[in-house]
């Protein structure tokens, strides 16, 4: 081997190791901080109670309002987004859509993806005022589902594009329609990919603060109605960090910890569940 080749080889090896350490290190740093400051503040009451009087001054209560609120917001938004995304992804990949139309749909989705979430919040808020709506769970779900849509469509599209053409053709050559092929063959074949797309979108939805700030509002009450404001974990973190009391700030880290554990737990459970339905996949 030439000296030059050896140098190149070792240079890129070192570069890869450094990047990997950097990425893993950032993750550990975040997890470490949240655990170190949040874990001592976390107790059963935080998970099982709504804020009582004086909670934000460091007195008793919990963030059950925000936990349930976030699950309702992101869960609802994810369901709405799946209903909208799956047909778009299947349509783009399986139907003979003109290239021009396809490219425009993709470009629109990419622009939506790159739009800051505060813009979604602001536009949602403006529309809600126009319609005479108050900040509510429904408003939050609608705005979050728009926020989740592009990431979900592109993820699903990526998964569907991996289906071998010959597999589609073997379904068509039995006289199956595109619709039957899409829902009976493609969805089964790509389930793990679809679930990844859904989880990515759910993660973005549940972690976003700016878009729900104006549209879902905040409340100390547990969510009871689609038309009432709801609390959310990212905003719970934000408001508690903003207080001057260290005890309350620690609770912000505890809320962040709950958020991380929720997303992680959901990822792991859905992956375990999905293996039950993917034993027939053609590799």
């Amino acid at each position: 081997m030439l000296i030059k080749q050896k140098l190149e080889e070792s240079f890129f090896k070192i570069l890869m190791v450094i990047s990997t350490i950097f990425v893993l290190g950032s993750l550990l740093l975040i997890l470490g901080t949240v655990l170190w400051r949040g874990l001592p503040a976390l107790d059963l009451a935080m998970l099982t109670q709504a804020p009582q009087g004086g909670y934000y001054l460091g007195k008793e209560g919990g963030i059950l309002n925000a936990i349930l609120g976030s699950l309702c917001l992101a869960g609802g938004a994810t369901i709405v987004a799946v209903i909208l995304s799956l047909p778009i992804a299947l349509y783009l990949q399986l139907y003979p859509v003109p290239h021009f139309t396809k490219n425009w749909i993709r470009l629109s989705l990419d622009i939506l993806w790159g739009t800051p979430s505060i813009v979604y919040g602001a536009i949602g808020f403006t529309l809600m005022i126009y319609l005479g709506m108050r900040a509510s769970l429904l408003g939050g779900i609608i705005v979050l589902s728009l926020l989740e849509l592009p990431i979900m469509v592109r993820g699903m599209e990526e998964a569907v594009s991996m289906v071998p053409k010959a597999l589609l053709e073997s379904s068509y050559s039995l006289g199956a329609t595109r619709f039957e092929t899409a829902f009976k063959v493609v969805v089964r074949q790509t389930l793990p990919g679809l679930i990844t797309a859904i989880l990515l979108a759910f993660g973005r939805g549940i972690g976003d603060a700016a878009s729900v700030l104006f549209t879902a509002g905040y409340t100390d009450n547990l969510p009871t109605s689609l038309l009432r404001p709801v609390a959310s974990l990212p905003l719970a973190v934000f408001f508690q960090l903003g207080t001057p009391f260290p005890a309350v700030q620690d609770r912000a880290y505890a809320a962040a910890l709950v958020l991380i554990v929720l997303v992680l737990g959901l990822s792991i459970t859905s992956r375990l569940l999905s293996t039950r339905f993917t034993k027939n996949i053609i590799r």
Partner: protein
Amino acid sequence: MSQALPLNTHSSPHLRIQDLNVWYETNHALRGIYAEIPTFGITAIIGPSGCGKTTLLRSLNRLLEEGEGIRVKGQVWLNEVDIYDRVMDLNELRTRVGLLAPKPYPLPLSIYENVAYGRRIHGLDVLDKGNGRNLDRKVEHYLRTAGLWEEVKDRLKAPASALSTGQQQRLCLARALAVEPEILLCDEPTSALDPISAQGIEEQLITLKENTTIVIVTHLLRQASRMADYVIFLWMGELVECGPAKELFKNPKDSRTQAYLMGKIG
């Protein structure tokens, strides 16, 4: 360009191809094909790579059009109906004209559901259900026809992907037969298989030809001479010669057919 010779004058052809032209973008891949495919028996399409064998085969159930940038002009008559007519229902056509692909692609379902799939989407299973466990019996029947039943009868619920390639190809055959096609198109059906599995598929097809029209694309002359009753020879997108297999293999009329059969070209 030679006109098709009818195999026997007693039965009418099952498919009549009339001035069929295919373009991939600007590449004129099939040029004015005229041919008749006799009812029942095995018709082999032979010729060197890139001569348009697969293109011709896939134009017969219009699967060709699933690709991009493809243009087809001409007529293919199936029992006095032009399959390229605008009123032709593609799903009905593909139910009547089945396909066995070169590489087996089972559906992401169990062995049983792979065979039942076609019957379910066409509502044939409703008729089956009318009589107790008839769908089970149908699935068994087609798995037996494809010569796979004995190997899978104890694990019908197992994923089809767990089968060997040879078994998967027989499963694909059972799956294709389960929708009761009148014509079965086979695109180099043994090219991905070991010799033993290949022989199995050949034997199943020879049994099936009694009551199904089979069209097979093959680049193996030996396979064509073993199986075919009727042969179509393509060269560079043109039909050079076609006729009963015995005649064509013994006395090829065109000099290109002679050269190809003797191994001088292609």
